[in-house]
């Protein structure tokens, strides 16, 4: 399964990149699985927000082929 991962703001600094393409072997994949592979086992920082295809979700959500999964800190716009 091919997934695009995106990072923003402090999360981009932490991960050292803004975007990555991941290939996961499992048939059924959650956001937590994506994070584990992308971060090579680092814990997910507590306040991290998650979006799949630009919709907010959480670490238990299922991820499908071609999805864009984004990890970022709490938003501070406006």
């Amino acid at each position, binding site marked *: 399964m091919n997934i695009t991962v*995106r990072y*923003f703001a402090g999360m981009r600094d932490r991960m050292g990149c803004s975007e990555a393409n991941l290939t996961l072997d499992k048939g059924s994949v959650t956001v937590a699985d994506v994070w584990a592979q992308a971060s090579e086992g680092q814990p997910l920082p507590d306040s991290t927000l998650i979006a799949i295809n630009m919709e907010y979700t959480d670490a238990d959500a299922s991820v499908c082929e071609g999805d864009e999964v*984004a990890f*970022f800190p709490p*938003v501070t716009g406006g």
Partner: protein
Amino acid sequence: MKVVVQEAAFDPYKEVQAFQESLPRGKHGGVVSFVGTMRDINEGVDVSTMYLDHYPGMTEKHIEAVCADAADRWDIIDSLVVHRYGELFPNDPIVLVAVWSSHRAEGFDACRFIINYLKKKAPFWKRETTPEGEQRWVEHNSRDAKAEVADLEEAARTA
């Protein structure tokens, strides 16, 4: 409804007037607008420039959803949001929210709702630079952000 997310500086009141030209004349009784501007101090620390990171596409999508939600909740005529990203300087307008309505109560409620939810849901992140050149990402300054998003989803479901 019009939502613009742009890097270029803008004149909020020219935007209000230009958008208003597109509305039927004599139909709205009031316009409530909010313009958020960059301050030169934040939490007691001087700020000389600010960089606004954003998630292109997701930002527009969520601001549009907030405006649509406001239009469902209140009897308004139209709404306009302009939000910058990129490099900003003190006194620069960051965001404009304007709401046209027949009656002012709805305009105030909807405008306040849009800016409050935009600040909670639209993926923007501020990075401040002090006069000494130190950079820091602005941290969410209220209670746990995840709880807040949950509150928002709950509020949206039960409204």
